[in-house]
Every structure is written in structure tokens, then in C-alpha cells.
């Protein structure tokens, strides 16, 4: 099983870069091939991918009322002063 474990280590080492869309070409195909045949790594990849989504969704902010107008007003004031 040493070979399989070496494969897992190689896949997990590049998992974040892969999920971030930063692995291309042959390296990318290698990781995908490993995920296709290794359930534990696939589960871990799914978790990390979903966690990224959860963090993104939960950290969203909406602009407070009036802030866009206040920014515009400052810019206009600057144009008139300058």
C-alpha cells in the first residue's frame, strides 16, 4: 500500500492549489485521476471545496444604507474643489 499512500500524499499536497484552480495541464489530470479512484481523498476534496463555499457565503456583506451616496458626494466634492 506504500504506493497508494504516496499517491495520496502527492494529491493532498496539491489539493488546495487544485481547488483554487491553480493547477493546470498534466498535474491537474493526475490529481483528478487520483480523486477518481481514491474515495478518502475525494471525500476530503469535497469537504474542502464545500468549506470554501460556506466561508464565502457566510462572510458576504451588504453595503450599509447611504454609503454609496456618501462616497459619490466625497468624489464630487473633490472634483469641485480641485
Amino acid at each position, binding site marked *: 500500500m506504500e504506493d497508494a*499512500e504516496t499517491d*495520496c*500524499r502527492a494529491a*493532498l*499536497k*496539491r*489539493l*488546495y*492549489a487544485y481547488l*483554487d*484552480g*491553480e493547477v493546470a495541464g498534466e498535474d491537474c489530470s493526475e490529481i483528478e485521476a487520483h480523486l477518481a479512484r481514491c474515495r*478518502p481523498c475525494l471525500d*476530503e476534496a*469535497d*469537504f*474542502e471545496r*464545500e*468549506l*470554501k*463555499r*460556506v*466561508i*464565502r457565503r*457566510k*462572510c*458576504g*456583506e*451588504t*453595503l*450599509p444604507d447611504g*454609503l*454609496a451616496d*456618501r*462616497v*459619490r458626494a*466625497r*468624489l*464630487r466634492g*473633490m*472634483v469641485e474643489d*480641485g
Partner: protein
Amino acid sequence: MGEDGRGRRRGRFEAEVLPQLGSLYGAALRLTRNPSEAEDLLQDTMLRAFEGYDGFASGTNLRAWLYRILTNSYISSYRKRMRRPQTVSADADEEFSLYDRLVDSGQTPEAQVIDRLPDSEVKDALESLPEQFRMAVLLADVEGFSYKEMAEIMDVELGTVMSRLHRGRKQLQRVLWEYARRRGLVDEAEPWKTPRRTVERP
């Protein structure tokens, strides 16, 4: 430049830049951790961006340029005012795996546990990270920037981007695990009971 030229420039600036205000505000809030400081930072960023707008070559990366200005404004004017102590040590947690902890606690699907945390706690967890790590996770996971864009925004090498991001994510995972435990979403009564994978993590 005459009155008309400046007016036209402002119009173009507003059309191109103001649609980014919402996401810039989110980043400003995560950095300053305070709504009124975030608004000040955003205003400063907009004024600096407007001043530098002529030097900004259209067709290049507007979003990355704006985030770089935001980051620099934060570092030069706001950071020194921040008093809240960093709650996570800078070198801990490199090996922490939230996934392993959740698998051990018998939670499936694992990411749903974190989804059950209130938004405010996830934001708080992110804000608890040391600034450089917080910035890396924010830019990659919340704002969706590429490593190359992050290197430009933070003005560091690609390798530094990757290492900050990795460490930031691990620290964030540890804080999220703590929050989930405190809320009783996971049970760590008998840790390490289930057989674990022993694959060494990067």
C-alpha cells in the same frame, strides 16, 4: 484639466469602480473589524483610487488594483490604530485538519456542521486570524482572487501567498472547530476513537 474633463473622468470612474464598493466594503470590514473604520477606509481607498485613476491603464486588472490600494491604505493609516490582540499564534496549527476532526466526531456531511454556525461566528473566526493570514484567506476564499493577483495585491512572492494561505486556512479551521464545539455541534468526548487515515498532510 478643465471642469468638463474632470467631470467626465469622475463619471467614468463612478461607472467602473462603484460597482466594486460592496465587495471592497466587506474586505474593509474584515480588516478593520469595525463598521465606522471600514467606511473611513473605503472612503480613503476611493479618493486614492480616483487620484491615481489616470495612471491606471484600462484593460488591466481593475479589481486587483483597487484591492491593492485598499490594502496599502489600511496598512498606512488604520493598522496602527487597531488594538485588538491577535488571538491565534503565528506558527501554531499547521497540521490541524478540521476534516479529520469532523470525521472523528461522526459528523456527515462534514461541511454542514460549519454551515450551522451563525454567519457572525464565521466572520469572527476569520477576523481572529493574524492580519497576513486573514488577508490571504479573505482574498482567496471570499473574493476569489488568483494566487498571481494576490501576489500583486499583497506585494509578495507567489510562494509567500501560498504559505500564508495554507497557514491561514489551517488556523481558521482550528477556530471554526472550537466554535462548533462550544456550540455543541460536535462532540469530542472520545477523540481518535475511529480509525484514521494516517496520510501525512502537507
